[in-house]
């Protein structure tokens, strides 16, 4: 008996998202699909004990969920006999010929639907984590330091829009793909970044979100191996490879230069590096591939001093042409400083700040402070560190800047 229960739990863990994705396609309704999914698993516990575990548990669960949904719609239709839409939905569902095919496509459909640009940007991430990753509303709220009620409300609104505005449950056509894929990649990268460098609070990394983002990246890679998908997955793997080296046991921030590279995860670096190469050979690479390529150059350097800064500056040049952005300019300035010295970097950063850009970005001021410090311009360094301190809310970064400030005294 407990064997069957364990088997049901295993199927839930491994396959519930696939089954949900298929039920959403069949039912065209997220809430109805979730209800049907849970009813199907509920029935499975009893039925599989009596009749044995079916050959294809997944097909059995989809089929059972579909019948449960038909029951639900019939009950609703009895109470609201005048609802023509409900009856049409029921009829359509009864006639749908369900076969076990297309199940992988269903998961891809689910990702594209949850990341549809017509949904509010702040709803795409929680909806994806809820529906594709099966995180609870409470888990999502904790990860993003928001109230569960606020997260739940965003998810409810998004689902209502999917239903009422009829956002289709499909993988976009080839002509729409680049733009729609961007939106999916952006959501995954947001999840990763939120986990990797929490924007505020005491913890430097939130492992769960980085793990979920990488899982999503792998899933997308399996379903749609486009160059930018490879690029994003590679970028996340290469960042993740440094996770245990980027903070001390007491939670202090350790800069790239000072990290113990023996603590970098070689397996993740190898996997990320291979993906970067594969993506670059397609010649259809974009910003994620280029950022991953930069991360790979860092990962391959045996020490900070032996980093190929020339190549990194070159990659930043290409990246800047693809997506002009002051943040990328800032990163390029840091690489130029490594190659040509602090003064060259400082000049570039001052150009950006003089244009009025990145004034409120703490990393621009801390980089400026760092270069001034290296050039022995202590007063300017102090002013810039103080400005950076005002702008950063993340505890480990604040302590790092305070440490630098006390060194200046």
């Amino acid at each position: 008996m407990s064997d069957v229960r364990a088997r049901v739990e295993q199927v839930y863990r491994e396959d519930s998202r696939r089954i949900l994705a298929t039920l959403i396609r069949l039912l065209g309704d997220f809430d109805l699909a979730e209800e049907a999914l849970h009813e199907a698993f509920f029935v499975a516990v009893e039925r599989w004990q009596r009749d044995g575990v079916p050959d294809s548990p997944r097909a059995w669960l989809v089929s059972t969920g579909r019948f449960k949904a038909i029951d639900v719609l019939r009950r609703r239709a009895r109470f609201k006999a005048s609802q023509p839409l409900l009856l049409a939905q029921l009829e359509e569902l009864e006639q749908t010929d369900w076969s076990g095919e297309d199940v992988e496509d269903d998961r891809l459909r689910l990702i594209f639907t949850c990341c549809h640009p017509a949904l509010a940007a702040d709803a795409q991430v929680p909806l994806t984590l809820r529906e594709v990753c099966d995180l609870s509303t409470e888990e999502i709220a904790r990860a993003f330091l928001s109230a569960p009620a606020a997260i739940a409300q965003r998810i409810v609104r998004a689902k209502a829009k999917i239903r009422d505005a009829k956002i289709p449950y499909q993988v976009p056509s080839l002509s729409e793909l680049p733009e729609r894929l961007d939106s999916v990649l952006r959501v995954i990268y947001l999840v990763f970044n939120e986990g990797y460098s929490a924007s505020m609070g005491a913890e430097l990394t939130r492992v769960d979100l980085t793990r979920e983002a990488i899982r999503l990246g792998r899933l997308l890679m399996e379903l749609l191996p486009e160059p930018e998908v490879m690029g994003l997955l590679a970028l996340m793997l290469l960042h993740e490879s440094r996770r245990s080296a980027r903070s001390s046991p007491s939670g202090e921030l350790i800069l790239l230069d000072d990290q113990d590279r023996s603590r970098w995860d070689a397996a993740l670096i190898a996997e990320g590096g291979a993906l970067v190469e594969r993506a670059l050979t397609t010649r259809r690479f974009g910003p994620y591939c280029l950022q991953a390529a930069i991360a790979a150059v860092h990962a391959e350097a045996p020490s900070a001093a032996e980093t190929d800064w020339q190549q990194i500056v070159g990659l930043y040049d290409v990246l800047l042409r693809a997506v002009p952005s002051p943040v990328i300019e800032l990163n390029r300035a840091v690489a130029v400083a490594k190659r040509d010295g602090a003064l060259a970097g400082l000049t570039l950063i001052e150009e950006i700040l003089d244009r009025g850009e990145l004034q409120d970005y703490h990393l621009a001021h801390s980089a400026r402070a760092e270069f001034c410090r290296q050039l022995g311009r202590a007063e300017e360094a102090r002013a810039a560190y103080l400005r950076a301190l005002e702008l950063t809310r993340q505890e480990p970064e604040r302590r790092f800047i305070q440490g630098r400030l006390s060194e200046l005294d």
Partner: protein
Amino acid sequence: MKYLCLVYSDERLLHTLPDSPEDAECWAYAESIQGSGRMVAAEALESVQTATTVRMRNGKLSITDGPFAETKEQLAGFYLIDAKDLNEAIQVAGNIPAARVGCVEVRPVRQLNV
């Protein structure tokens, strides 16, 4: 499913920007939507300066000059279309020539509960 595509633009600029569409182009686009079988209705509107707002309060009709709300962009026209889903509606809306100089709000039509 029906969608109403509301075309908004700053009407002082609608016809004067380098990307502004000529009437002939707008007409041709409407014809192409008609040809695809997705057209229910479409019209361009006169300027908001010609707008009149009416309200019925306590059985009394109130009439005022001007649009319901003063906004930076004004309603310049609309398409009422039949589309399979929001993606198809977005395709139709995005290619409305005036979308190059203004914007198009896409709203699903609600079935009345009767």
